[in-house]
């Protein structure tokens, strides 16, 4: 008997074919549609992939994530109550645990910046490396902003989602993340950063942080 497809998994892919293979090895394709998009920026690849999705749930996963079917099923189950779901990630060969993206104060420049959090407290929304989002919510947010070129798309999407009151959660599943393996990952870092902080200057990020100070998105 043919299985029901639980979600579409969209994989923005660049040049690490070995990692893509490893990623696909962990997933049971009878339960998920797999959409691999390459040839453009992270955001544009994701946006293209989302257009091809057939189910109501989109799961975006970088190809340097090691995730198992059971973890994906948990994300699907969590979508019953939440619209935008992230997972904790074990990075730097498992020596660091990433929770979600939050707002912290850069003490050198004395400005508020968005960054991945190393603890549950302060995490406000999922990182872009691995997250699930309902298709109608994704469409409502109009996906990633194509002005970003492989960097900070997730910060922009997360802030927009929170500002629209999207129900968000982070699951403590500890998926393994190799991190920033694609060639040219940081080529546009300065441009992306400049763009992000033009849209979200320090005082706006401070207000955002204050609003979610007591927010606990980790399940």
């Amino acid at each position, binding site marked *: 008997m*043919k*299985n029901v497809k639980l979600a579409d998994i969209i994989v923005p892919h660049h040049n690490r074919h070995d990692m893509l293979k490893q990623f696909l090895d962990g997933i049971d394709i009878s339960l998920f549609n797999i959409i691999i998009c390459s040839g453009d920026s992270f955001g544009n690849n994701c946006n293209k992939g989302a257009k091809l999705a057939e189910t109501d749930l989109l799961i975006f996963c970088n190809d340097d994530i090691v995730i198992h079917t059971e973890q994906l099923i948990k994300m699907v189950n969590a979508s019953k109550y939440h619209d935008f779901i992230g997972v904790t990630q074990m990075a730097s060969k498992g020596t660091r645990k990433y929770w979600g993206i939050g707002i912290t104060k850069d003490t050198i420049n004395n400005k508020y910046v968005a960054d991945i959090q190393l603890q549950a407290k302060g995490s406000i929304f999922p990182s872009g490396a691995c997250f699930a989002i309902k298709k109608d919510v994704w469409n409502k947010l109009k996906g990633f902003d194509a002005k970003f070129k492989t960097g900070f798309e997730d910060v922009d999407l997360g802030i927009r989602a929170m500002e629209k009151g999207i129900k968000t959660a982070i699951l403590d599943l500890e998926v393994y993340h190799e991190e920033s393996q694609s060639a040219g990952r940081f080529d546009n870092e300065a441009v992306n950063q400049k763009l992000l902080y033009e849209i979200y200057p320090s005082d706006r990020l401070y207000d955002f942080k204050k609003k979610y100070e007591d927010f606990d998105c*980790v399940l």
Partner: protein
Amino acid sequence: METFTGSPLYNYTLAIEFLKQGHKVSIFTTHWADNELKANLLKAGCNITEVFDEEYDITLISQPLHNSWFSRIKSKKILNVIHSEYHWETPMNSDRINAYIAIRENVKQHIVKEHKIPQDMVFVVYNGVDLARFSAKNRIVRKDGYIKVVLPCTLDPLREKFLNYYAKRASQHFRVFIYGKNHMNKGFINPWVSVNDVVPNIEEKIKDADIVAGILLGRVNLEARAMGVVSVIHNPDNPEEKEYFFPEWEEFDERHNIKNVAKQIIDIATSAEYRKRERAKMTDSTLEKVVYSSVMNRFSPVKSGAAIKSETIIKKRDVSESDLFKVLRTEVK
């Protein structure tokens, strides 16, 4: 009927459904226990017995019955239900058996190949699930962040590799809950594995699971699907070999709804006499050949060389079994 395991639950579920459909039902076993199965059967009006003192229209036998008991059965039709490929499910070899019910296609292939049962006497009728009891309406999605895996199974040597596979992977983020009789007195060092005694209401344990797992395709997979929970089917010899089970609802309902299963079994029993007469007119090899060729000619979508499940085709095409045999008889002439 001492345990809440495959064969007793098969008979229990079927008996309750037969009673609902207005049939009179008796269950014979030498292994009764004062448990919920017995209590519920009595409450539903089932006659529970340790002797064969009546004549029945249809008798269903699970697992080989010693001839001293078998010879005492007074029944118009006798069907032998085969639940797996294991030796304790060896089909009974007797002229008194009118048909064999295999609960999976693989079981059918096994008893035809290994036990030389004529394939036209074997019908695949899948395990039935009471969809009122195992319902997605009762499903609870937990709001916490860990993966809950439920293994409703006996702890025995057959399942040892499967149990170890999960025990090795269990963690704070992947918690394993086992419900079953512990015949091996097996314990686990991993604190994230919870071993619990068998329960009569397993639906209460799987309703909030993220994943249910078992070996082969068993009741646990069907009950999980009925409740909207994804399950895993493992090879007991090599648990790394696994497949996920979450089929499309329409197909699942058609195959596994106990209402349909009960009706199919009655249909097979009531058409057994007709088949027996037809068989007597043909040799085994002729019959096999004719079944294949006639089905191929009549139902063109079947690919050449594919294993033909004649009963499935009959059902899908809404053609009665007697119609098919009319075709067979015509071709033989």
